[in-house]
Structure formats: C-alpha cells, structure tokens
C-alpha cells in the first residue's frame, strides 16, 4: 500500500512538474505575444519559448575558464529543481497538493528564495564582474521583497489559525478549501486587499521582470548574472525564470482566488476535479497576464536602491497595513 502511494505520488508528481514546465513555457509565449501586441508589434510565434529552449539544449555549453565549474554548472539545475519542487506542494484546483502533508507555504517561500540564491551563486561562480553585479543585485532584491512576502504569508497563516479555518494554518490546501474572503469582516476585506496588492507588487521582484528587471538588466549589465551561461545551463535558467513567474502566480491564485468553478456549478467527483484543474490554470494565466505581462510592459526598470526602498517602505508598509487591518478585524 505504502509503495503504491509512493509510486502514485511519483507518477503524479512527475506529470505535474512536466505540466508546469510546459505551461510555464506556454505562458512565456503568450506573454511575449501580448507584450508585442501592446506595443503594436506582431510578436513571436506562440511556441517560441519551446524553440528557444530546444535550441539552447543543443548548443555548446561553455564554462568560462575562470569559473568555479561545479558551482557554475550545478546552480542552474538546483534553481530549476527548487522551482519544480514548489509545484509538488501546490494544490491544483480541488486536487490536494501531491506532497501536501510534507511542506507548506514556508517551504514554498524558502524554495523561491533558494532558487534566487542558486542563480546568484551561479553568477558569482562565473567570476565575471558583471555577473557579480547582477548576482549581488539579485540578493539585494531578494532581501528587499522578503519583508512584504513574509508579512503576507504569516498574516494569511494567522488568519487561518485565528479565524479557525479547518486544516493546518500554513498549508495551502486550507486556503483552497476555505476562501479567506468569506470569513473576514469589512476591515478584513480591506486588509486582504492590501495583502493582495503587496503580493502583486512582489511579483516583479520575484520574477525579475519589468520594473524589477534589475539583476538581468540587459541594457545596463547585459543580462547580469546569467551573462556567462550558455547552452543547456542557459536553458535551465530560462526555464527557471518561466517557472518562477508561474509559481508566484499560482501562489497568488491559491491564496487569494481559490474560487472553485466546479463547486459553483455543482459538479462533484471526477468532473469537479477535472474542471477545477483546468479552471485553476485559467486563473493562473489571468493572474499572470495582469501581474506579469501587463506590469512589465507598462513600467520601466528601477535602480536597485530604489527597488529596495520601494519594497522596504512602500510595499512592506502596504502589507503591514493589511496585517493591522486584519488584526483589528479579528479583535473587534
């Protein structure tokens, strides 16, 4: 029985990770097309990211002579793995997370952070001054958006605990099963909105796009920390970037938009699962288009100092306001 479950989880896990990879790339294509259309351009084919990755897989993989090879080579894989693992802890629609019992929101946040660290380490290991600058920026950026992120996560957990949502406070499934919007009062709704906005503003930092395209800034530091990467390693990094966007959007979806279409229509059983599975990805795509594509197209890039100021003061302030509102909501 044990073995069967493990086997099942293994299969389901691999399938989900594969799906996540494909969807992430697909979204990348959608993102590029929409971005192009918004700029009145034709844009690349939908499957362009797939071509890119396939091509990179076949390209020569250069390890710069001065780089520390083992870190340089392992960093992209670690980064990718850490991003893939995130999806194992993510409930998809009405389906529970594959490894739901073993990890929760904290682990996911850690994985997101770890992924950034891996990329930074890879950048540092390439011994290129520009990659160095990029990696440093990545680290600073990470330190900056962590406060709002942590506040949002803790507050959500606290909400789950204090409002007595059934299930474990930090577990994402808790939020899927019981939309937070239903349990809080008026001030709470406002607080949740603050948290949602804070989270949305964290997305550019997490995905390194748009106004937070600082560690890779092509026109400033020439792709920054990935400057020395090529071939397979670069493909892994590109996948990681795509997955990061998907992951963070999925988190937003799970936390704030858990609405189940299946339950709404009154489906049950297989149909419910299947419909919600699809519905979940639709929601994620919508979130992605709004928070990634649209934001990145309409904003220029900040400087790293401005970015960390923005996160430490503005976004953190917003998230703390959300936290206070929710506390007030609970107490009164």
């Amino acid at each position, binding site marked *: 029985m044990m073995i069967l479950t493990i086997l099942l989880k293994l299969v389901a896990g691999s399938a989900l990770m594969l799906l996540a990879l494909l969807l992430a790339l697909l979204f990348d294509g959608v993102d*590029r097309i929409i971005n*192009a259309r918004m*700029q*009145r*351009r*034709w*844009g*690349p*084919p939908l499957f*362009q990211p797939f*071509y*890119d990755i*396939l*091509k990179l*897989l*076949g*390209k*020569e*993989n*250069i390890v710069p002579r001065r780089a520390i090879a083992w870190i340089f080579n392992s960093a992209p894989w670690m980064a990718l793995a850490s991003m893939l693992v995130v999806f194992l802890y993510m409930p998809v629609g009405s389906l529970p997370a594959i490894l739901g019992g073993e990890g929760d929101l904290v682990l996911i946040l850690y994985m997101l952070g770890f992924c950034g660290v891996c990329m930074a380490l890879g950048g540092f290991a390439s011994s290129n001054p520009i990659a160095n600058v990029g990696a440093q920026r990545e680290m600073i950026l990470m330190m900056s958006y962590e406060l709002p992120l942590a506040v949002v996560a803790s507050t959500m957990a606290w909400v789950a605990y204090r409002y007595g949502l059934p299930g474990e406070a930090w577990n994402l499934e808790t939020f899927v099963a019981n939309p937070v919007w239903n349990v809080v009062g008026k001030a709470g709704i406002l607080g949740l909105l603050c948290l949602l906005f804070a989270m949305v503003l964290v997305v550019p930092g997490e995905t390194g796009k748009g106004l937070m395209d600082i560690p890779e800034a*092509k*026109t400033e530091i*020439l*792709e920054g920390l*990935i*400057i*020395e*990467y*090529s*071939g397979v390693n*670069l493909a892994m990094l590109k996948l990681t970037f795509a997955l990061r966007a998907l992951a963070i959007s999925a988190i937003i979806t799970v936390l704030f938009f858990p609405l189940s279409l299946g339950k709404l229509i009154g489906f049950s059983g297989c149909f419910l699962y299947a419909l919600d599975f699809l519905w979940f990805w639709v929601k994620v795509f919508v979130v992605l288009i709004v928070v990634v594509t649209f934001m990145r197209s309409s904003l220029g890039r900040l400087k790293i100092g401005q970015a960390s100021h923005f996160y430490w003061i503005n976004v953190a302030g917003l998230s703390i306001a959300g936290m206070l509102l929710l506390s007030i909501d609970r107490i009164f």
Partner: protein
Amino acid sequence: MKLEKYLEILPKSLWVTTCNSGSCNGCDIEIVATISPRYDIERFGMKLVGTPRHADVLVVTGPVTTYMKDRLLRIYHQIPDPKVVVVVGNCGASGDVFYRSYSLEGPVDRIIPVDVYVHGCPPRPEAIIEGVAKAVLKLEGKRKELICAAQGETE
C-alpha cells in the same frame, strides 16, 4: 540531439548579438529599427541579446579598427557553437568609404569567417531581414545535405 533535428529548430530561434567594429552607426540604427514595431524581427523568433554567450548570430558592422580587432575575435569566440556571422553594411563587407587607413584591419572577413553579407550603406531594415533569411536558408541547406547523406548511408 541529432544534428539535423537540431538544425530544424535552430533557424526558428536565432538570438543575435551585434558588434560595432567601427561603423558609422547607420547600420546600427537600422538594426535597431528591425526590432521596432514596423519590422519586428521577433516575428521570426529572433531577439537581440546582451551577451555573446547567449547568441547564435553575430552581426558585425564596421570596417574593424585596430582597437576593435581583438575584441571582435573575442566576441566571436565567446559565442557558443554553432554560430552564424552576418555582416551588415558595406563597410564591414569591404571597407566602403573607409578604404585606406593606418588604423583599420578589416574588412570583417579578414578577421573572422563570414556567412552572409548584407549590402547597402546602410541596408534598409528589410534588407537586413532578407540577409538573416539567407542565413536561415544556409542552415536549412546544411540540414538537407545532412539528411541526404544519412539516407545515402541507409541505402
């Protein structure tokens, strides 16, 4: 990946890096124009990348000054194989108006192997697109030859 399979995918995703080795900028602004909305070379899956490490295509402009010669070589080496070199503009192809000087080492094909020349001074953006298409044809040609060779072996 098998080479012929790979050559099928490569032309769909050409990443370009440019090197100005002493040009007058005329070609460079036309290259920039190719990414602008009117010409939008991203349609063909191409994009400008910031570093030679990520590139498949090296676009060179300019008659190669002495100072830039080593840098050009270095960029060329930094591009992972397989790679394509496209010279845009006549000054890179032959020197153009810069035909006699003490500080020029060009034209480009004296320094690195060149696959396609796009003529013009500067070429219109469409001509650059056509030049890149030539590069794609060349890659496709190679692929055909490979496939023929493989069939020849099996027979």
